[in-house]
């Protein structure tokens, strides 16, 4: 077993129970609207909403899983007693959380498709639209999950790096809040600069990502996807930002976080 496999196995072992809880939670969250619908004889009133809601919640599954693993390790920080690089230590956790999110999304997508099979005549959507939409939506959620995770790791390492200064130890979360607001302030400020916006939106790729729901008479739905323009530079910027956050976290973990 290679060292990284060992890490993956360990991270899976310490988190599998939480993931199991999440799957159970999802299932309950799906069964309840199904039960309500059949009780009131009102098909398709709650369930689609529940599926979409859960898929959106799922964006936070990755960072939440990651944070709960980090919280466990952070109790003693003895996971740092390990000859592997910080990148390997964190990547293993991200990889395990990513797989969890992927499985949960596949599960929900499958549920969604099953629902679709039952109510085909009430939902009007092109098969190709459905297919492309599902894939793009899922990839999008995974990417957002990864992006948020990088922020989560970053804040976590900052929080624990401050742990060795008793003066700020009890106010660490304030520092985190401050950083959070500072970043948002700066990014909204930057977004207001017109030249910057022009540059960012100069190159765009069209993506099938704008779903339109039309409620028609007789409880029928018409769904079609619009093309949305995704700014390439903006995407690139987010990727660079995420990588930067990840690398800073690794650096902090190697040098500033203590047992």
């Amino acid at each position: 077993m290679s060292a990284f496999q060992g890490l993956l196995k360990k991270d899976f072992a310490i988190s599998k129970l939480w993931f199991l809880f999440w799957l159970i939670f999802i299932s309950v969250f799906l069964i309840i609207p199904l039960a309500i619908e059949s009780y009131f004889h009102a098909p398709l009133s709650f369930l689609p909403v529940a599926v979409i809601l859960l898929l959106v919640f799922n964006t936070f599954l990755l960072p939440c899983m990651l944070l709960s693993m980090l919280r466990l390790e952070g109790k003693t920080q003895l996971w740092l007693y390990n000859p592997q690089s910080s990148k390997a230590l964190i990547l293993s956790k991200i990889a395990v959380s990513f797989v969890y999110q992927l499985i949960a999304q596949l599960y929900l997508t499958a549920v969604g498709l099953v629902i679709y099979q039952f109510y085909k005549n009430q939902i009007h959507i092109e098969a190709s639209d459905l297919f492309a939409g599902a894939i793009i939506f899922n990839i999008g959620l995974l990417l957002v999950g990864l992006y948020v995770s990088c922020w989560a790791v970053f804040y976590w390492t900052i929080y624990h790096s401050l742990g060795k200064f008793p003066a700020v130890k009890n106010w660490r979360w304030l520092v985190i809040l401050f950083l959070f607001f500072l970043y948002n302030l700066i990014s909204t400020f930057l977004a207001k600069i017109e030249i910057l916006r022009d540059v960012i939106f100069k190159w765009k790729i069209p993506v099938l990502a704008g779903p339109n729901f039309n409620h028609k008479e007789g409880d029928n739905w018409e769904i079609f996807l619009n093309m949305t323009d995704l700014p390439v530079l903006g995407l690139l910027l987010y990727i660079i930002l995420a990588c930067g956050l990840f690398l800073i976290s690794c650096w902090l973990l190697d040098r500033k976080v203590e047992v």
Partner: protein
Amino acid sequence: MTIQLKNISKRYGKDISLKNVSLTFETGKIYGLLGPNGSGKSTTLKMIAGLVYPDLGQVEVNGEEVTRRISKDVAYLTELDMFYPSFTVGNMIDFYASQFTDFDRNKAEQLMQDMKLDSAKKIKRLSKGNRGRLKLVLALARKAPVLLLDEPFSGLDPMVRDSIVKSLVSYINFDEQTVIIATHEIDEIEPLLDEAIIILNGKIIEQENVEDLREEAGLSVLEWFKSTMAEREGRDHE
């Protein structure tokens, strides 16, 4: 491997943990780092393991500045509880074997037999004493050039301490390992030590060769430790 601490200082806020500490540890010797709780023993070991960084000064293992990655050469037994609650003894052994290339599975098996540990048992179900033994297994099964033991007897009742001392003698490689044992239970490890170091309030106050101590001062390490501490207290009260 030679370990060198050069003018190390470390503080946590207003609390001074180590104050201008300089020490050299040589290959093939067993050192006892002795002192009351909170004297800086644990911090010293963590620093050598690369888990805590000095504010001032340098820590070198084999001439190389220590970082977290030094754990490849440093086997470290911590006084903290270091296990994942859902793991079995066997899971923990597997995990260590995957992370540390010098981990010797045969040695681990042998040690587990000696310590009567069952690899299928969940760690959270183990008694405190057995958790202590598992930590020893994990540390001693590695062929690391440096072995650091932080309070290896804590939580173990006196009956098993004797057998632990014997395992230490059997499994330490005296020709190649540098061993540092931090403890306030001096009696048990005394016959194991080559050198004894007293640390108090973050300062190294005495260092002696154990046999010289007996030969020249006619004192056991324990007696020497007690008299040194009493002397210090007397001085502090003046």
